[in-house]
């Protein structure tokens, strides 16, 4: 872990020493070979896709956990849980491939060119639903049954019981799951690389192609030299920092849990 950070910093150092950190946020364009280094469009790309995916996947993921815990008959719940686990195990490159051959043409019919922010958001949504659903399922399972029996004894409807008792009690687990999912969405490379179109620009609509930080590394690393190469390591550092912040947040939240 320390070795990894040290190496990222070592490799990023040349460009930071020569041009400093400012150009990464102030330059007009991303042409590292010519010495302009802005990574703002890529940061927006990463944030847009991750936030969009988390917004869509949260209700679906938590909803399916609630379905498993409170609505489905036991056999179906068991089957459904297995299905989500398999879904979680599908390689990201398979998601990306499916997105490229199925989803992108569908979106292209709506509005060309098809490879777009929207495709990226949808694929990421699919990929993080299992993460959210499995963690939410586990945290609902940990809600003490006495709470639920108490709620039932008060004559609350099933929905009132879930909304008023189960969700608040499972709150910290749910939040931790969401943060894990956000981390996965930010770090995902292959799937977004395959469906997003990879044009370096800040997307202004859902149908425009864009590029994320991770995709940028994957695309350019193969031929990057000198400062260009170090610039890519800078974006690697930035990703690492984002994940560090998320993990710290998860830790704070899970310490403040109300059951235990």
């Amino acid at each position, binding site marked *: 872990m320390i070795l990894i950070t040290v190496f990222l910093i070592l490799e990023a150092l040349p460009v930071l020493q020569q041009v400093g950190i400012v150009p990464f946020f102030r330059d007009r364009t991303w042409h590292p070979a010519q010495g302009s280094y802005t990574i703002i469009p890529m940061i927006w790309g990463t944030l847009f896709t991750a936030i969009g995916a988390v917004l869509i996947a949260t209700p679906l993921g938590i909803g399916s956990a609630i379905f498993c815990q409170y609505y489905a008959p036991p056999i179906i719940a068991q089957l459904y849980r297995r299905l989500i686990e398999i879904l979680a195990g599908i390689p990201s490159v*398979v998601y990306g491939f499916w997105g490229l051959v199925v989803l992108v043409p569908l979106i292209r019919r709506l509005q060309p060119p098809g490879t777009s922010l929207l495709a990226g958001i949808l694929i990421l949504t699919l990929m993080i639903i299992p993460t959210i659903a499995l963690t939410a399922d586990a945290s609902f399972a940990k809600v003490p049954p006495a709470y639920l029996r108490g709620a039932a004894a008060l004559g609350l409807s099933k929905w009132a019981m879930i909304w008023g008792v189960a969700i608040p009690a499972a709150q910290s687990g749910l939040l931790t799951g969401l943060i894990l999912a956000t981390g996965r969405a930010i770090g995902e490379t292959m799937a977004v690389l395959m469906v997003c179109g990879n044009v370096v620009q800040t997307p202004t609509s859902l149908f425009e192609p864009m590029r994320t930080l991770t995709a940028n590394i994957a695309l350019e690393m193969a031929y990057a030299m000198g400062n260009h190469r170090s610039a890519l390591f800078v974006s690697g550092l930035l990703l690492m920092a984002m994940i560090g912040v998320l993990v710290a947040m998860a*830790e704070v939240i899970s310490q403040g849990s109300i059951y235990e």
Partner: protein
Amino acid sequence: MNKSYYASLLPGIVFWAIALLITTIFCWIFTDILWHGIGQLSWEFLTTAPQNAGREGGIFPILVSTLLILAVCMAVAIPIGVGTAVLLAEFSDRESRFGRLVRRSLDILAGVPSIVFGLFGNAFFAKVLGLGFSILSGGLTLACMVLPILIRSTEEGFRAVPREYRLGAAALGLSKTTTIWNILLPAAIPGLVVGFVLGIGRAIAETAALIFTSGYVDRMPESLFDSGRALSIHIFDLSMNVAGGDANAYASALVLMLLLLLINSTAIWIASIWFQHQQT
């Protein structure tokens, strides 16, 4: 039947709909890949080399490279992983500063994007250690990636061993090494197997970390120092860079998913046999 009766039904309907939606999408993905991939899949596809940049021919060298990368990864990750887990579970207190530090860095490590592992592998294994684009550096990079999962579940396995085992061993005057090797390790095998399966699953699905470490070459690898293309990279390359490679990409995706299922069910099978063996 008044209005509030229907209102009380609404949440149930919504949740069934969500579950149905996710199931539908899942079936869609799976049947899509099965449908397009099964036509291409044959014994020849598995045993011949790719031709014409992968549009024709099979995936034999790619399968071999994939398995070699996995083998390197696991050969390195398992000893280190089990060692660290033993250290964490048996030689350090759960709340000690050292244990907490190691555990926290493992948590962060587990969340690090795979592409960052790729960058690291490229800088460290390929450049500094001079391994170049090779199966070895790919496998080593993957080993770093699966370590957190492996350590976590092995550690859980060790912690799940009943306290009586340790007390009994101590009462018999066994040394700590003997206790760990002959008593705790066998009892912790289920945790190890789970970690092994999760680790292999993550490693075989990995693409981003391998692009700059094990490389693109789709020839048959001659040694561990040769560059070799992993199955997932093959899918990526066929669908992105090779026009008309979709059919073989479908077939490769199918192979990849079948391979994953196979590994998972074998591990579950081994674990269940082992459980029965232990109970008799």
